[in-house]
């Protein structure tokens, strides 16, 4: 646990969008998936997930609906909207640019 990274400001939104881009997921699944695909390297404070989800929903980037899970529980599923997809693309390319630029600077040193 000690070698996990804290998430840089603003990147949580991007990761959530990416996670729900494939299929609709409920909150717990999103948190699980985030940890899996980041190979347990990223520390997502599970509590901060929900405010982020609600914020994204308010922006209209994801939308939510209640559905029944495989073991017959009601859960709130989130999925990407059309404008969410655009946002994801924009944020992904912005992130790539930033990462490349930071990489360049570090290589110079």
């Amino acid at each position: 646990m000690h070698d996990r990274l804290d998430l840089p400001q603003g990147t949580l939104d991007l990761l959530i969008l990416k996670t729900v881009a494939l299929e609709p997921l409920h909150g717990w699944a999103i948190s699980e998936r985030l940890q899996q695909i980041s190979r347990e390297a990223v520390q997502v404070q599970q509590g901060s997930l929900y405010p982020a989800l609600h914020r994204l929903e308010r922006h209209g980037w994801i939308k939510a609906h209640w559905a029944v899970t495989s073991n017959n529980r009601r859960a709130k599923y989130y999925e990407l909207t059309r404008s969410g997809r655009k946002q994801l693309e924009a944020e992904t390319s912005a992130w790539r640019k930033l990462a490349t630029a930071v990489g360049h600077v570090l290589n110079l040193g």
Partner: protein
Amino acid sequence: MRSDFLYRLRALFRRRAVETELDDELRFHLEHQAEKYRQAGLPPDEAARRLRLDFGGPDQIREECRDALGIRLLQDGAQDLRYAVRMLRRSPGFTAVAVLSLAVGIGANTAIFTLIESTLLRPISVKHPEPLRLLMWREQDGGWTAPNLGYVSPTLGTIYEQRMKPGQAIMHAEFSPPLYQTFRRDNTVFDPLFAFKELGRVTAVMDGNAELVNCFLVSADFYRGVEVSPVMGRAIGPENDVRTPEGRVAVISYEFWTRRFARSPSVIGKTITVNDVPLTIIGVNPEYFTGIEPGANFEIWAPLNLGLAVSGRSYLDEARVWQIPVMGRLKPGVSNARAQSEMDALFQAQVDATGTLVAMLKDPAKRPRFILQSAARGMDYLTDRYDRPFLALLSLAVLVLLIACANVANLLLAKSAARQREISLRLALGAGRWRIVRQLLTEGLLLASMAGVAGVIFGYWTRNGIPALLATPWKPSPFDTAFDPRVLLAAVATTFVTGVLFSLAPVWQSRRVEVNEALKEGGRGTVSLSKLRIGRLLVVLQVALSILLLAGAGLCVKTFTNLRNTPLGFRPEGVLLFTLDPPLLRYPAEQIGALLTQLQQRLDAIPGVQSATFSVTRAGTRATDIGSRFFETMGIPILYGRSIDEHDTLNGPPAVVVNQEFGRQFFQQENTVGKTFKDSGNVLHQIVGVCADWRFERLRDPIYPTFYSALLQSMLQAPRNGRVNFELKIAAAEASVEASVVKQIRPVVRSLDSDLAVADVRTGVQQIEDGLSQERVLAALAAVFGGLALILATIGVYGVMAYAVARRTNEIGIRVALGAQPGGVAWMVLRETLLLAALGIGIGVPAVLGLSPIADHFLAPGWTGSFLYGMKPNDPFPIAVAVLMLAAAGFIAGYFPARRAARVDPMTALRHD
């Protein structure tokens, strides 16, 4: 953006549901996570610990989620509002004054905007007026013009001419029959193209009852063009626009159907006799359709081809008569530019074909121009007549509102200065500056909303005031003051703008509050004086605006009284007038004399009538045909020679009476008895008498040279346009005598011919007053608004000074303790007040001098260059009165604070803090 707002609204109003969902969601997560730890083999207490570590406190998360939901702003807003309500309730006096003064301002604007909306903005009542175009042409200044022009609306009485001011081009909306036919035949851009003609008043007889109604003639395609279909029966169509019996049909208005036929379905097929022409009723217009002339109502709609039979006038037959208005509905997809260029080509070719004034047509600067105009307002007589006075009224009302705003801003400023300690405390406790600004804005908007509601109610009550002052008592009013949603929208916008406007001052001031400084001062500092600077600026502004309003009111009132005091040259008191329209078919030229003389004798016999006479104005001339004893009845002195009497008949030598101006202009002397002259019809007249110059209807016009001939002699040559005026002189100008005579008029006329309808019964005084209605409204409203401005300015000055004295009690106490005399202290305060007033006057007077000539020119009626009558825009008298009134107001407003200052007891004042 919209979804964002909806999301927040849901979060706010379905709070319970949203919270439950949130709880469900979090619980679901926690259970799954716990399950996961259990499967990983963690003991329960360790799992619970890890869970809390991962997740954080549930309450904290809920709060963060609420933030993310975006209801924080709205919750804060509600809190601001509650706080604002509390603030306003704590000072009811301030709230009352602020709300009242704003309500008056908003109310005045609402009432006037109601009038503007209904009179000048509302489109005609057809379903799709957008593609409708009115065909017009512009006569260049001094350029080519068409023969026999002039479209006088018999109902609204205005010549359809736009901006007929010196040096400006004139617009015409009428065309000749060949042009109308060419347009109809050759155009490819309109479907359909249709013509119409307002016939005006006609005598309609149904079931033996005669009534004067308004008649509108329409061409074959009119109903298709305006897309109106009757609620019952059928519309006038191509089969009806003929001169065979199929053309003797009429469609009646819904209002007429209700009034005269009690909405009976059997009205279809009934016969209605219009000016002695029997017409079959074939349809009833829908209720919403009142025609294509805003402000006018027509009971009877008949085919255009009936014009000749019903009125004796021909619009469709003579190539040299330009009298037909034409409208068209643009075909879908046809641009305005294309239609304009195609119609222009047709128009120009036809103008060349008239062969008149050919030399002018060769000069491009003198050729007429064809113009397509939007017909969303139809044939719009109202705009031309009322746009300028109404805009003037609106600007006056806006000025009042601005003054009220300044007043409220000032009051708020004084209050917020007192709240500086509170504001700095809130800042110190960590409130954002934006939050403070929002609080102040909320208070302002709350005040404005209260005033807005009161103002709309006030405006709704008073919305009929101006129409009542403007309308002619004996005619239907052209104003419809039904409340429109647009008016409400405008009121809401006004309210919002004023709210923001007067909140700006305290907001601006709060910007400068320094946390530490204000707290240190203990809320009662010496800095308050410099902080009142905005307040003083506002007071100066108020005074300046008030000068503007008061001087304007003075100019309007003076113009009105000048007009009323214009010598008339006759006595309108005790004169009764009414009108008859004897149909030409029944009363051709050779019989009209007998009818009128007989009627004159019977009217003479009514008890209370001293003498009766009649007169007919000849169309298009300054000649009047009169009955015997005309001058005696009207009380116009005969200066030389004799009057027209009962001996001036066809058997006697032709005799005319002229006015003084006639002699001055044509014979260079006033006494022209015995002279002869020829009129434009080459008829020789001999002058037998000279009457004093007099005027009746247009008091602003100069006296024109006029001659009066005996109708019994001239009726055969002079073209008559139908309308006959009767004048009765009654024995005593008392209401009771007047009323008993009026009651007798109708039976007397009916005893002679039961199909003759009496119209426009009025007194001579009413007639003159009616000619002054616009001036009266402007004078009355400007005076009321000026008075309001004066009161508001006085309150404003008083408020600022009273506040300043209250804040300076300390300082004044020290001054008195150090030996200042009460008189000196009082003078110090009073001097400051007078200085503020003087500054305002110093700004206001040049503003008046600069603006009044512009306003005067703007309001000038018709072709006169000036609205003011009997004075110049820079007339010193009204300006001086305004200055004196405001100086007095300043003195009164300053007197009470000054007296208070003089009575400050140094001991109390110093202990006070």
